[in-house]
């Protein structure tokens, strides 16, 4: 029954999209969909050419299912001392810092060294966890942050007085567009694999010297919820796309549990 209502809903959604696409082919409704995970990079659907959209989005989950132009909205990755031998200009990223909604406010409104007179009145300067009511609203479980098994806290990653920046091992600010310079501090093996294209995601040209859009760490992982409970896979749980059509004449998929393989 649940399955029925579910597929009916899907069908309705699907038909809605198709019929609207047919009724007004020049002006499709504005659709915003997310790229890797909800809450990270988003993209607005538009037509690059007639009949050639920049992205196709899933009617069920709202995830990007297809890129028309992998380099749409990207900028050069810039100085990347850790990526040796990669042709310059061929590595691009989608800038995130300007898209993070509260980012421009961080250093201006609260962390400018003066700050409004809230309680506690001083900015935390030590790395030891202290209650911060204003931040707890954004990062639940702040005092018990499980990243690194509870061994690290805000100021291990965020710059002490430039809060719109991250921080490297020497206290230098790191842009939110290059979080790998921060994450690589601890995850060196993953950093190496990411640099060589074994870990993480890139889109664009497959040749080892080709132009690629690199997805940086935080586009896929949420550093504030990196363990994601019992699964502990470093990736939040998401809704799956629609299941395949049932084989001819089958009303449900119980046969899979009996025989193992549907052919």
């Amino acid at each position, binding site marked *: 029954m649940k*399955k029925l209502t*579910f597929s009916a809903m899907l*069908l309705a959604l699907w038909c809605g999209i*198709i019929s609207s*696409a*047919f009724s007004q082919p020049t002006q499709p409704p504005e659709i915003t969909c997310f790229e*890797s*995970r909800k809450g990270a990079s988003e993209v607005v659907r538009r037509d690059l050419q*007639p*009949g*050639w959209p920049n992205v*196709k989005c*899933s009617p069920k989950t709202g*995830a*990007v*299912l*297809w*890129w028309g132009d*992998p380099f749409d909205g990207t900028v050069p990755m810039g100085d990347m001392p850790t990526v040796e031998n990669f042709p310059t200009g061929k590595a691009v990223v989608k800038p995130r810092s300007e898209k993070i909604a509260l980012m421009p406010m961080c250093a201006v409104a609260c962390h400018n060294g003066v700050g409004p007179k809230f309680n506690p009145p001083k900015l935390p300067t030590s790395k030891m966890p202290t209650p911060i009511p204003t931040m707890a609203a954004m990062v639940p479980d702040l005092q018990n942050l499980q990243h690194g098994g509870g061994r690290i806290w805000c100021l291990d990653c965020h710059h002490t007085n430039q809060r719109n920046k991250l921080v490297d091992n020497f206290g230098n600010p790191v842009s939110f567009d290059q979080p790998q310079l921060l994450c690589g501090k601890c995850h060196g093996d993953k950093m190496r*694999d990411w640099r*060589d*294209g*074994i*870990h*993480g*995601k*890139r*889109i*664009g*040209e*497959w*040749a*080892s010297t*080709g132009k690629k859009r690199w*997805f940086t760490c935080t586009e*896929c992982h949420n550093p504030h919820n990196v363990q994601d409970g*019992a*699964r502990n*896979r470093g*990736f939040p*749980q*998401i*809704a*799956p*796309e*629609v*299941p*395949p*059509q*049932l*084989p*001819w*004449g089958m009303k449900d*998929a119980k046969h*899979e*549990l009996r025989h*193992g*393989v*549907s*052919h």
Partner: protein
Amino acid sequence: MGVAALMTQSDDVKATVEWAEQFQGNYRLMTAAEKAEARARLERRYSAQYSKKVTVDTSEALPGVLMGYALNIRKCIGCRRCVNACVEENNQSRGKNPGERIEWIQVLRMERGEFSKEKMNEGYPEGLGIQVGGNAYTPAGQVLEGQYHYEPALVPEKDATYMPIACMQCEKPPCVKVCPVRTTYREADGPVVIDYNWCIGCRMCMGACPYWARRINLTTPVLPKAEMNPVTHYLGNRPRMRGVVEKCHWCLQRTRQGRYPACVEVCPVGARKFGNLLDPQSEVSLILARKNVFRLKAELNTFPKFFYFYD
């Protein structure tokens, strides 16, 4: 009707091209001029049929390239984005009636097993009473037990592992051996392709493929105009007809132009990797050098160019 159309050079695009198509040769045996003619014919027909400018690429295998694929089996979360990206890219049939939706990738959900010391001697399949090798907790003869139709609210589930399968582009493809009309064959840069015009729909290849990679269009494919992908390749994602077999070809229309396959680009966890096996710096070559790699059903000597790995 067809004869008349041919003789009078009729403007009826559909009639003339269909007549010409009946008499074209096997794609591999066509001359360059015949290929160009076939390509122009198809571009005209598809453009009229789908009301947009459709291109049919006929580019040949890239020199110095042997395409290879790798998938990190530990990373896959079973989200099926790859499956749907493939349908969007490759113009599969997507109707609602039985048999009208075709997907080339299958994501298999498997229960997490355990190989504990206590269970070492429990390898006897229930009801059969004989040991059939290894830790076979279920009857032998079945491989890849699992579900394709799982529908949880969220993935990955706690006790499941996911295994996507599609065409492995075998080096020694059994599907090619059995094809009576030689319409399916291995291209020089690796992928096994199908000349849809020569497929007689006998389904020998479907029976021969040990990876359940092939699908047949038993119904007339349902491909709405608005959703049709106009960038196609003759041996790749051009619209298929009723009664022909199709399967994954590593997005020939994209990869021959240098771009990653659609499933690689869409995977949210970056589990999918694609590259040139002959280039030691390619992603796939580095994975083969560094990671733990296995091939599915390696004992069948099909030598897939699709590698599963974990780290």
